[in-house]
């Protein structure tokens, strides 16, 4: 056997070995695939179970979210008034109706609703009169606008009145030294007649 024949034979053996290995691998793969086919359902079931657990976990976590405290509820309730018990804020009203309202506020807070949303709901259901403060719209603006306007008008009237009083008050007599004098001159300042006399005397000097 020459060298070339030997090389050819070796190559052929190598190819044969590679081929056998490939066939074996393919066979293994087929076995594996056939095994996988039996495994797939269990994988799917496991995945589904994990997904369910995850969802349940989220739900449980949501369910375990802290329920709004009485303080949270009262923070909203103190800005509302129940029409049944007039002039009593909802947070301190002892009636059953108000207790139901507070429970409703608690539920709405637990649903993630804001204070404004809750107040709007109550207004839609029971009218503006449930609000502690009238809404800033329409004629309600009078409640907000009139007090400051009346106050400013009052201040202006007082200012004008004071200015009139000061203007009417006779000026104190002035001594030659330029200082306000006490005693008889002060009395003269209070009496218009004496003031006039003093002025006439001053003219004659």
């Amino acid at each position, binding site marked *: 056997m020459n060298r070339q024949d030997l090389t050819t034979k070796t190559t052929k053996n190598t190819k044969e070995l590679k081929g056998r290995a490939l066939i074996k691998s393919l066979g293994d793969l087929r076995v594996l695939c056939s095994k996988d086919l039996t495994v797939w359902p269990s994988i799917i079931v496991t995945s589904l179970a994990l997904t369910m657990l995850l969802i349940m976990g989220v739900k449980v976590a949501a369910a375990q979210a802290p329920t709004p405290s009485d303080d949270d509820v009262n923070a909203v309730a103190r800005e509302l008034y*129940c*029409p*049944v018990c007039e002039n009593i804020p909802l947070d301190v009203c002892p*009636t*059953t*109706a108000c207790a*139901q*309202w507070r*429970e*409703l506020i608690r539920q709405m807070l637990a649903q993630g609703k804001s204070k404004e949303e809750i107040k709007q709901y109550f*207004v*839609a*259901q*029971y*009218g*503006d*009169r449930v609000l502690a403060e009238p809404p800033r719209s329409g*004629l309600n603006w*009078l409640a907000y606008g*009139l007090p400051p306007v009346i106050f400013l*008008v009052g201040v202006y009237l007082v200012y*004008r009145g004071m*200015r*009139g009083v000061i*203007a*009417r008050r006779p000026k104190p007599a002035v001594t030659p030294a330029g200082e306000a004098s006490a005693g008889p001159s002060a009395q003269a300042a209070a009496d218009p007649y004496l003031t*006039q006399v003093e002025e006439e005397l001053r003219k004659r000097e």
Partner: protein
Amino acid sequence: MTEEATTTTSAGKRLPLWVIAVSFAGLLAFLTLIAWGLHRNQAGPIAIGQKVPPFSLTTFDGQVLKTTDYAGKVLVINFWASWCQPCEQEANSMEQAWQVYKPGGQVVFLGVDYVDTAPQALAFMKKFEVSYPNGPDLRTIISQMFHTTGVPETYILDQQGKLAYVKKGPFMSVAEITSVVDGLVK
């Protein structure tokens, strides 16, 4: 000189005419507004024999019922609330009376739920098997119109839409209801 000073002082006291006019106009408008509000608030309740203004009721299941749709029928309007103990006493009688008149179609019962929360109201209706139309008094418009003083209160309108009977407090029996309604059905 003295006269000049006096004139200046008296002129300083005087307010401009337009300020006085505006002040009086504002005061008059304000008093008119107060008078109108008082008149509206202190207007008495609807009197017996007086025509009841039309109104609508949105039921718990979302239907909008208009009183104008019930022209020519006797209308029994019952104000109630789930937190009201006397309303519980009355609920069965109201439902039984409704069952009496329902087949005839000449009488309509409307339940107006006053200042209540929907879950409790629905539980109340389920508990007493209330089947006639019921809905919340949204924005308390209906109760304000009737000037209700509490619950339960029942207003019965005749076939001409005029207020025929008012019951403040619970009906104690079916017979008490039917004795009133029968006299109005022609």
